Each structure stands twice: as C-alpha cells, then as structure tokens.
C-alpha cells in the first residue's frame, strides 16, 4: 500500500484551524519541525496541542506557541518556556498539566480502545480532583480518561513508502503512542526507503496507522 510523500506545506493544509493535534517530542527532540514550521507559515490558529512539553522559545512546538497558533496546550511541563508562562498568565493560552506517565498512558488507552487508565499517580494531589478513585486489590487508583485527537504529527527516523516507521534513540518518546490515537496521522521521517528495506522486527509503527508521509526537503 504505497503512498506518495507530500510536502510539509501540504501537511499543514491538512491540519485545520481549531484541530486537536498530538505531537511527538521531548524538549523539541523528536518533534517534526518541517510540519511545525509549515503550520507557522500558513498562520494556523486555535490549535489544541497535546504532547510532553512546550520545549524552549524557538525550539520544537515552542515555535507554534510564539506564533500564536495555539489556543490550548495539554502537556506535562512548561517550565522551560517562559513564553508559554507569559501567554498563560495573560490569558492568551490555556494550559492543562498532566503527569508525564499518565499522559503517555491516556493517549495509549485512546489508541488501544481502552476506557481509561487506572493509575496511582496523582493520588492526593490536585491532579485527582474531580476524578473517580477506584479500589482494586486493596489499593486506590485514579481513573484517567483516554485521549484521542484529530491529527497526530510524528517525527520518525526511517520510513518506507508503506508508511512503516522506525525511531531513533531519545527522539522516540511520544511518537509511537500518538500514532495510535489520531484520526489522521502525518509522519515526518528523516529518510524514506523502498518498501521491503526495513526488517519487520525493526518497524515500531506499522504503515497501516500512517495516513501521510512528509517528503525530505529537495
């Protein structure tokens, strides 16, 4: 099931204003920067972005925040980006903080057809406020609801033209899990190779989950 790669500009057109967008990356490492820059270039507005953090100014999705593309960020950490803090304080950006492991697991649950996550994380904190606490085998767990989104934007290492993806070292992070949880999945690989080149055991995301591949710059 071959598909042709598209330009980053075309990818940005496929992400409408107001969309919810799962993004890969940890402090900008493993974030699909060509797609991010194309979203800034097309002047995207009102996005809800969901991922680990807002990186630093000028880095990763930090660029989306600065350019005013983002209405809401659902992330685990904003401490390294003063622009996020300023926009939040100024009421220009809504921020919802989710513990990192809970965020990964809620996205996985959304993608795996599970009804949520039962985690000890957040018990006795503001994170558990208003949520159901369920006892299992004598221990308490917070019920965290699944997360899905309109679009997922992934950074990958290698792709083949089937859309099969590999990831590289710590650029892996949230990319494999978000591939399961969006109605449209757009991957930005560092390299695209012919189908059959990547051994079946090395693929981390099967191409059947990937809707679009972004080509390398010419």
């Amino acid at each position, binding site marked *: 099931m071959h598909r042709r790669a598209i330009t980053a500009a075309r990818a940005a057109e496929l992400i409408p204003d107001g969309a919810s967008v799962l993004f890969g990356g*940890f*402090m*900008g*490492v*493993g974030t699909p920067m060509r797609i991010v820059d194309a979203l800034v270039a097309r002047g995207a507005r009102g996005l809800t972005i969901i991922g*680990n*953090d807002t*990186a*630093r100014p000028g*880095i990763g999705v930090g660029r989306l925040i600065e350019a005013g593309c983002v209405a809401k960020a659902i*992330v*685990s*950490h*904003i*401490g*390294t980006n003063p622009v996020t*803090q300023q926009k*939040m304080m100024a009421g220009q950006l809504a*921020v919802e*903080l989710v*513990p*990192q*492991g*809970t965020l*990964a*697991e809620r*996205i*996985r649950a959304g993608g795996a057809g599970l009804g949520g996550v039962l*985690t*000890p*994380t*957040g*018990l*006795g*904190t*503001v*994170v558990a406020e208003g949520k159901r606490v369920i006892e299992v085998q004598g221990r308490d767990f917070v019920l965290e609801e699944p997360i899905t989104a309109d679009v997922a934007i992934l950074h990958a*290492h290698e792709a083949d033209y089937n859309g099969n993806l590999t*990831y*590289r*070292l*710590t*650029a*892996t*992070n*949230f*990319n*494999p*899990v978000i591939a399961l949880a969006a109605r449209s999945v757009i991957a930005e690989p560092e390299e695209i190779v012919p189908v059959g080149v990547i051994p079946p055991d090395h693929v*981390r995301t099967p191409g059947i989950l990937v809707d679009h591949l972004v080509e390398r710059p010419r």
Partner: protein
Amino acid sequence: MDAKEIIARRVALELRDRSLVNLGIGLPTLVARHVPPEINVAFQSENGIIGFGAPPPEGMEDPNLTDAGGGYISALPGAVSFDSAFSFALIRGGHLDMTVLGGLQVDARGRLANWMVPGKLVPGMGGAMDLVAGARRVVVAMQHAARGESKIVPELTLPPTSARPVTLVVTDLAVLAPTADGLVLRERAPGISVAQVLAATAAPLIVEGEVPEMQLAA
C-alpha cells in the same frame, strides 16, 4: 565544599549495586559524578533511555540523543532506548530502584512538593508525580532552606506531588527519614550540630540518641 556538593556526595552513598536509578534535572544530576567505584548503577532518563553517559566531544553530538533536560548525552555499551509509555511502565511498575528529585518543600509526613508555586511559577510536574508514585525509593535532594526559610515544614503549603511519603531527604544540613511518627533526624552535615539542624528546621524532628555525622562519597 558547597551545599550542592555535600548533598550530591551524600546521596551517592544511597546508590545500590546493580540498581536502576533516575536523577532529576538540576541538583540531582550532580549525583552521577560521585558513584562509588565498586557500585554498578544504570541510569534511566525518563525521556527514553537506560545506560547513557557524559556528553560526547563537541561536534560529535547526536540531536536524537539527549537527556530529559534536552542536553546531549552519549550511549554506553548495553544502552537501551524506548518510548515514553514504556519508560513510565518501568517507573510506575516498580522497576526503578531509586529516583533522586529536587524539592520545594517536604513536610512532617514526608510528603514532597516540587512542581508549582501558585500564582508565581507553574513549571508543571513533568515526570515527578509518576516517579514519586512508582519508584521503590524516593530520595529528595535539596537545600535545607531557601531565602532564609526552612523547606522542611510541619505541613505543606505548596501543592503536593504525591500522597506517598518519600524515602529519604538529604539536605546540606541533615539526612531526614520520614516515619509513621514523623521526621527522624538520621545524620547531620559535617561540622553541623543537632541544635543547628533543629534551629534551621520548621517541622518537628525526632532525635533518637547520638546523631552521627554524614559520610560523603568521594
């Protein structure tokens, strides 16, 4: 020896042979410099790697190989990379032997606050809530006081990171162990008297017999 150095060297003695350890960003990172030579420790960075080492020589960095702060690292022989869901499966599932985290406050019940100061600073919890909920041993590494005020308090005034008490608190003045009865003063820093520790501590401390002076790793 400055305060951070004392803390890092004392925490290093908590490392156990053949264990998996996570070090938080900032002060806790210094602990890695003082691993006792006879001890074999694997470090996990929550962004997705076990077995990383010091930054490579300048110009040899890999943008896809970073720690949780986004800084360049190297991969030691036998290193393993994985995604965020797996990283927190290890952390939450009790496979992480120890985490060392910074702190804003610890209270008499041993509860930690380290992720926000309402109205002032909202960095977010990142992985801290999962680490405190899941690691087998949670060691807080922090200065005893900030701006003249004790960070060891009777009751948290900042939002807690977890309902679960931490295992040990190491400061530049003392080693404290939370127990069912309250905080026990286990050790005092070199040259510091019990009276000096008590005077610098807002929370009540339990003092049992002679309180030995801290040993410090090389």
